[in-house]
């Protein structure tokens, strides 16, 4: 959109990765004079807002400077040799697939930092909290920015330790176990993934994702591709999470602090699906074709399973936890993303990438809202909240209730909001899957997935009815309505949800050429 010098673009992308790390180190040091603030706690939380704000600005400038006419070429690329012995290069770059994810990550982390500034997390010193948040941001941004398999793995692992500590130290009930489960599941997955990445890298003779995508699996035999896809796929599927490897997610979400949940759902889960699109689809297409029907089958099972679990939680008397419910709904939504990827068609993959972003925005918003609800009522238990008739949030705190209803309908995929396009395109892709994939099977998956959208609508509407509606007793204490800082943190998410819903071309225009290129082997 605007013309920015290439070396400035390179710097911006490198800054996105390295900036938060430097910020994390700075957060641990004592504040310099003049920036001490009212108290050390306040100073370090403000530091977090400043750094993530700078990163967000850099990401936005990067997006503006991105050549939107050629979203399929890698831009702002840096390529320096780091470890010649392993042939590992610091290869950074962004295209239409990763750019939206970079901006989403920068945005959500900034909003989280802003939220924590006004509402410091309950737990030990905020110093470590800010440092961990920044390391987390760096790892996530690096995952989307690097173009080297080993660096991808490094970035993938880098988020584990900060997330572990965020859950284990600032979380709620059952946090220690949830944090363990989170880290063990993802680690077991990622070690297997490492083996797959090494197999691809060693057999093909390069770890460079661009070179592998251009090669399009030609230098890998089908059997190598099958093994590699299985190994890497397991690692990514744990992270995504794909049914039946999802069982770490509900616990982690329930125990995590608000900020942790937002980032976990908003960006961490996307690392898994991004890996599918960026690595497996272009580098090992034959292997992926072998597993695509199974992936799609697991995906639709996930959709139905997630929805049914949510329905069960939303029932009266089920003692359902709202955070847990949203976590299960994530399993369903990520099912649509996986279904889209499994079709191996431009339509499906575009839908998957769209659904990725939409899920980040909407679920991020929902976790913020539920966190706010917990602050006010002290509980996220649906039965405690709703009592006999319903929590009557519309009456007690109309704006909060309205936003919750907005988040719920966006999540169920109401046309005109962001949630709609991704799921529709994913289903549409399944209607006509790529050559070599069984059409009847995918038609069945499509039908089941479509049924899943109905179930999704059902449980979300039940949640709205039980939390937002109901008879408010006259003497009931009014809840504090949306505070200004909450308003500031949530507005961008609401606005982007509407914009993406009404003007999907803004996103699809970016992803489509890049997806076309990846699927055709980078030689279009």
């Amino acid at each position, binding site marked *: 959109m605007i013309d920015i010098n290439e070396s400035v673009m390179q710097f911006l992308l490198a800054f996105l990765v390295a900036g938060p790390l430097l910020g994390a180190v700075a957060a641990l040091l004592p504040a310099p004079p003049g920036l001490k603030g009212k108290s050390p706690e306040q100073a370090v939380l403000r530091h977090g807002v400043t750094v993530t704000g700078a990163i967000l600005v850099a990401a936005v400038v990067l997006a503006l400077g991105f050549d939107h006419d050629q979203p399929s070429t890698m831009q702002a690329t840096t390529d320096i040799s780091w*470890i010649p*012995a*392993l042939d590992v290069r610091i290869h950074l770059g962004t295209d239409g697939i990763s750019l939206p994810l970079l901006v989403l990550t920068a945005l959500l982390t900034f909003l989280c930092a802003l939220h924590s500034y006004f509402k410091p997390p309950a737990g030990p010193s905020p110093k470590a909290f800010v440092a961990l948040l920044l390391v987390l941001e760096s790892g996530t941004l690096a995952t989307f920015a690097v173009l080297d398999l080993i660096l991808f793995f490094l970035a993938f692992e880098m988020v584990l330790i900060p997330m572990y500590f965020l859950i284990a130290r600032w979380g709620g009930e059952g946090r220690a176990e949830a944090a363990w489960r989170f880290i*063990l599941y993802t680690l077991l997955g990622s070690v297997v993934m490492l083996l797959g990445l090494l197999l691809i890298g*060693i057999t093909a003779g390069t770890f460079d994702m661009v070179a592998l995508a251009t090669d399009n699996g030609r230098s890998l035999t089908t059997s190598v591709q099958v093994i590699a896809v299985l190994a890497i796929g397991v690692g990514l599927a744990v992270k995504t999470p794909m049914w039946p490897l999802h069982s770490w997610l509900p616990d982690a979400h329930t125990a995590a602090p608000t900020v942790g949940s937002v980032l976990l759902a908003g960006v961490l889960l996307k690392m898994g699906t991004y890996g599918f699109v960026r690595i497996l689809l272009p580098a090992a297409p034959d292997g992926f074709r072998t597993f695509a029907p199974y992936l799609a089958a697991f995906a639709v099972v996930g959709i139905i399973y997630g929805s049914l679990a949510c329905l069960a939680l939303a029932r009266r008397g089920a003692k359902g936890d709202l955070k847990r419910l949203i976590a299960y709904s994530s399993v369903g939504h990520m099912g649509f993303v996986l279904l889209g990827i499994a079709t191996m068609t431009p339509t499906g993959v575009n839908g998957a990438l769209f659904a990725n972003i939409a899920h980040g925005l909407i679920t991020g918003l929902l976790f913020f809202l539920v966190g706010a609800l917990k602050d006010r009522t002290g509980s996220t238990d649906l039965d405690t909240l709703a009592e006999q008739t319903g929590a009557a949030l519309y009456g007690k705190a109309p704006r909060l209730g309205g936003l919750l209803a907005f988040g719920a309908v966006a999540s169920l995929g109401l046309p005109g909001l962001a949630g709609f396009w991704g799921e529709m395109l994913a289903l549409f892709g399944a209607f006509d899957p790529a050559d070599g994939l069984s059409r009847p099977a995918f038609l069945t998956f499509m039908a089941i997935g479509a049924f899943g959208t109905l179930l999704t609508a059902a449980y979300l509407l039940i949640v709205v009815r039980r939390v937002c509606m109901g008879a408010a007793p006259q003497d009931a204490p009014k809840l504090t309505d949306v505070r200004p800082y909450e308003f500031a943190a949530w507005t961008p998410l609401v606005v982007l949800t509407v914009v993406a819903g009404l003007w999907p071309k803004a996103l699809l225009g970016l992803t489509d050429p890049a997806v076309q290129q990846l699927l055709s082997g980078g030689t279009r």
Partner: protein
Amino acid sequence: MSSLVQSVDWLAIAPPTIAAVVGLVVLVADLFVAEARKPLLGWLSVAGLAAATLMLLPLLDADRSTFCLVGDTGVCSYTADRFTLVIQFLVLGGALLSALLSVTTLKDDGKRLPEGEYWFLFLSSAAGAALLPASRDLATLVVALEVASLPAFALVGLRHGDRKSSEAALKFFLSSVTATAVSLMGISFVYAATGTLHLTLVAERIQDVDGQLHTLAQTGVVLTLVGFAFKTAAVPFHFWVPDTYVGAPLPIAAYLSVIGKAVGFSGLILVTVVALPSYADVWGPALAALAALTMTVGNVGALRQQATRAYSAVRLLAWSSVGQAGYLLVPIAAAAYSDDAEKSIGSTLAYALMYGAVNLGAFAVAALVGRAHRLNRVADYRGLYASSPLTALLLGFFLLCLAGLPPGIIGLFAKVTVFAAAVDAGLGWLAVVMAVNVVIALVYYLQWTALLFRAPEGEPVRHRLPAPLTAAIALTGVLGIALSGAPQLVLRFTDTGLF
């Protein structure tokens, strides 16, 4: 007429020689130095080890050989090539760090550890360990191995009036001499079959051994390997490790965990890759199985340690070092299957250098905590961050390096090279076993790390930092962090010629 006297390249043999000479000087000086001045002996030894390490620098330019056969200059008993220098650096550097730990331990222990004997034994063992990677014939190899390990038995049992210490020494001694006897037997068989002790000649001649001697040669190979497997504490020769580590003074445990391992695996590499490449189909599968067993037993043993048991921190490090020995064996096993054996061996070297730095760092912190908490339980580390934040951060970093998880980037990459060696050699099953082990190991490393940052129970104990301990912790910390930023420093051994 050519002289029958071998010429000696003194520069090439300087590193082990300096260590040995300083050891003798310390032993003699001990007789004349007044009681109050005894700590000087420690500093003299540290200086000697530092000098020996520095003497590696002039050797970097080219490979040197000495003690060569007079008639045949290509066949030598002592070679300072790249492989030798790397291991010597690991051994001498590791000994230097352990010596720094010892200075404090000797001071704290009062008169229970005799200083002169301690330093003499310590330096002798280091000299033997430094000699071992350079030896290129089986006799020198065994002599070096024994020089490295005999003083170590004495060091383990040196603490006066400590039953546990003597018991550990006896366990260590008995199992070790058995292994040595077995490998001597094996070497004699190999000698009988080939008529030479020089490794390169053995490699040539063992390929066309007389048919009748074939069984003899094979038995010899297996028996020789068994002896060296013991030194790396490979399963099933690992049972002495936890008791020995707990009974020994802590710096000696640290020393054994790194230098003991280096001795074992460098001997193993020389015997397998240099002397017996033609028997790769025998030792390849054996080492692969050994590696898988060793890492599994070690990691499961470490996992089963209870945090509240006495000495559990040292026990955990001991078991984890058994597990790490398993990872070190993987590339050696892979060398049997791959076309480029040196590349695989390079992975072992890179891994060993990483392991040496961070494991000694972890032991240094354990020595520090052990000063305030005699029992050195893992539970004693709870809330370390509150009392000494920097030490806690470093220990966390060391443990994550051992686990192979960012921010311990060097640990991660060292594991990646080991995985790569296994995958490259087609040992997929071993890579998968190792993957499972990495996750098991992660549980206990991470549990320990998490404990450092928990809220302390009761009043936090302030740890006073003596200068030598600070130096050791700082040195290992700087090494670990520098390597994490530039892993190429150690990983380059995976793609350069070694021998």
